[in-house]
């Protein structure tokens, strides 16, 4: 007997929907075993991870706060990836957006310039991210440089530019030399939605972005163009779609979204520009984009789910003393199973009898 992977003649929608569910179920089983080995009650641990954060308004809001940048960045990335354009540098675009937007907050600090500041900051953030993304895009279109490398390398450049600014010219004079700008004025801060809790208007912006992306991909020529260029470049060329222009377009949009996410994060929950504003959102968003199968609604769900594992992991540390490392193992196992189960969409597993082996086996 032998197990073989056999390519499916056609894709089954049933499997496509079942595959992530199967992945989550397998993750839960694996984690339960791990919890049991650690001497923790698996049912209780899973409850703390997945259910408890959903039962309380504080943690619900924190999930939204955490998911906001992830979803916004991942939407932009999904456009790139659908068009077969590999922007890996969203982290850098996020940072440059934060830097460009923060410029206004820093120069107007303490002067009470009026309500135009915040919209202008958001605009500059989006612009900053888009311009930063234009560098790898232009290098690819003009010189054929590999955008995976160039966009990734620019992450570190962006990081160092921010570092220089908050340690040098933009440093808070009252900050005891700590590398941070002064706290943003209230007019330069994204308002929270409610009196209590940290959920802010950025969460609504993320929802709007999801809706716009869904409409664009499903209903417009541009969305069609993105998908055709990604799936069948030759056909797209015959149809008159310009793949170079599309590279610029997708990079610009994803850079702008990452930049917008950056300035919203800085002007929202953080309130200052400082190193460490992103615990790797730009990279985690790549996982979110693929977990969400490059589909806007899927990305929204995936972003919320990943945020849930962060918040739930913290809850597990507090109430069950489960180490943080296990939360990371958890996320890793989840991604592993998702990718593994995805192969079931393209392949089917078949058990075939192999007579020679059988004879050998009994001998």
């Amino acid at each position, binding site marked *: 007997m032998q197990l073989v992977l056999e390519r499916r003649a056609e894709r089954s929608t049933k499997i496509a929907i079942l595959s992530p569910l199967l992945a989550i179920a397998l993750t839960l089983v694996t984690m339960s075993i791990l919890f049991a080995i650690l001497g923790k009650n698996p049912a209780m641990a899973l409850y703390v991870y997945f259910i408890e954060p959903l039962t309380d308004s504080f943690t619900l809001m924190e999930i939204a706060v955490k998911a906001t940048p992830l979803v916004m960045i991942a939407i932009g990335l999904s456009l790139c990836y659908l068009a077969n354009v590999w922007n890996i540098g969203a982290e850098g675009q996020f940072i440059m957006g934060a830097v460009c937007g923060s410029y206004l907050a820093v120069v107007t600090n303490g002067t009470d310039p009026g309500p135009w500041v915040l919209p202008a900051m958001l605009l500059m953030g989006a612009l900053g991210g888009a311009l930063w993304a234009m560098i790898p895009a232009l290098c690819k279109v003009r010189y054929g440089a590999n955008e995976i490398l160039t966009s990734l390398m620019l992450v570190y450049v962006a990081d160092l530019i921010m570092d220089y600014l908050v340690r040098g010219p933009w*440093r808070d004079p009252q900050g005891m030399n700590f*590398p941070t700008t002064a706290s943003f004025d209230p007019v330069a801060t994204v308002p929270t939605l409610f009196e209590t809790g940290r959920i802010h208007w950025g969460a609504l912006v993320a929802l709007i972005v999801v809706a716009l992306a869904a409409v664009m991909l499903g209903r417009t020529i541009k969305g069609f163009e993105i998908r055709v260029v990604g799936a069948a470049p030759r056909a797209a060329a015959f149809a008159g779609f310009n793949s170079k222009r599309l590279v610029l377009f997708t990079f610009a949009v994803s850079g702008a979204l990452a930049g917008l996410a950056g300035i919203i994060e800085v002007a929202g929950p953080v309130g200052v520009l400082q190193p460490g504003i992103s615990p790797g959102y730009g990279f985690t968003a790549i996982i979110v984009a693929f977990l969400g199968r490059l589909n806007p609604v899927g990305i929204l769900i995936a972003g919320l789910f990943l945020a849930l594992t962060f918040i739930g992991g913290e*809850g597990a540390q507090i109430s069950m003393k489960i180490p*943080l490392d296990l939360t990371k193992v958890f996320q890793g196992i989840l991604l592993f199973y998702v990718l593994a189960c995805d192969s079931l969409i393209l392949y089917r597993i078949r058990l075939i009898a192999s007579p020679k082996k059988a004879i050998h086996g009994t001998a």
Partner: protein
Amino acid sequence: MKKLMMTAAVAALAIVATGFSASAAEKLKIGFIYLGPVGDLGWTYMHEVGRQAMVKELGDKIETTYLENVSEGPDSERSIEQLARTGHQLIFTTSFGYMDPTLKVAKKYPKIKFEHATGFKRAPNLGTYSGKFYEGRYIQGVIAGKMSKTGTLGYIASFPIPEVISGINATILGAQTTNPNIKLKVIWVNTWFDPGKEADAAKALADQGVDVIMQHTDSPAAMQVAAQRGIYAFGQDSDMIKFGPKTQLTAIVNNWGPYYIRAAKAALDGTWKAEDTWDGLKEKMVLMAPYTNMPDDVKALAQKTEAAIIAGTLHPFKCPVLGQDGKAVECKGGANLDAGQILGMNFYVKGVDDKFPGK
């Protein structure tokens, strides 16, 4: 799968029905926010050792929780608030960068007691605590001045906040007492904990002729590099002798346990007040690891210096203190710089071979 889901659902319901906090009503819940992993063997590790000492002393009167690897960015406010809303009555936040988030949460939960390590912002329910680590730095300087053959010391620094600056200055002031021509090179790694960067900095210093390395970062990586290169180093935060049995001269050991026990006892019997605690060698918040790998006369000198600091007859920042430009700094504390000048230190003293960051 169906069966699994059902089991989970039933279990969840059972938990909801019985409730979580029935048993914890009597105990005082104490929470800690850690910057690094508990296994960093430096800063965070020593807070963890302090927490364990507290648990050992107070046993089942308290229940403790820690959150590790909490970055100083947007996540820290949530993490602190998570502790506040899960019934923790006394919360220690153990890194400088948690200052503003701790203050925010403290204002929101006026009945909960907060203690922030190494910060300077206080509130009626927010105290601060720190060690006079510069006292240990001074002793290290005295030793390094004797032990260095090249006359060049290397310093791996994290962020140019006053605590780090005062450590650098105390080191060179101590070293100048045993070698007036000593030089001190500084490398800023801009992180508290990144073993890779710390090791790179140690290698770069060794390549520049440095033969004694000190650090204000949290991992033993620099100690290991020094051991490979056959030069000396000082441990930081904890006794790192395991990582350099022939390398470590001594180490500054952060001894938080007694303070944590004191604060927890005060919270238990209702006498807790938000205070500004700043203890040194005398109060044993700062300890020196055994003096090793040095000749007896250097060891005797180090012990003498330590005893003098404890007795109060020697102050590392005894006036006159000369700035990098050679001019004496204003002396606000009479014979020494005063606490405010040390806690807000914002200049290099003469002899530091580095441009002051950002100036």
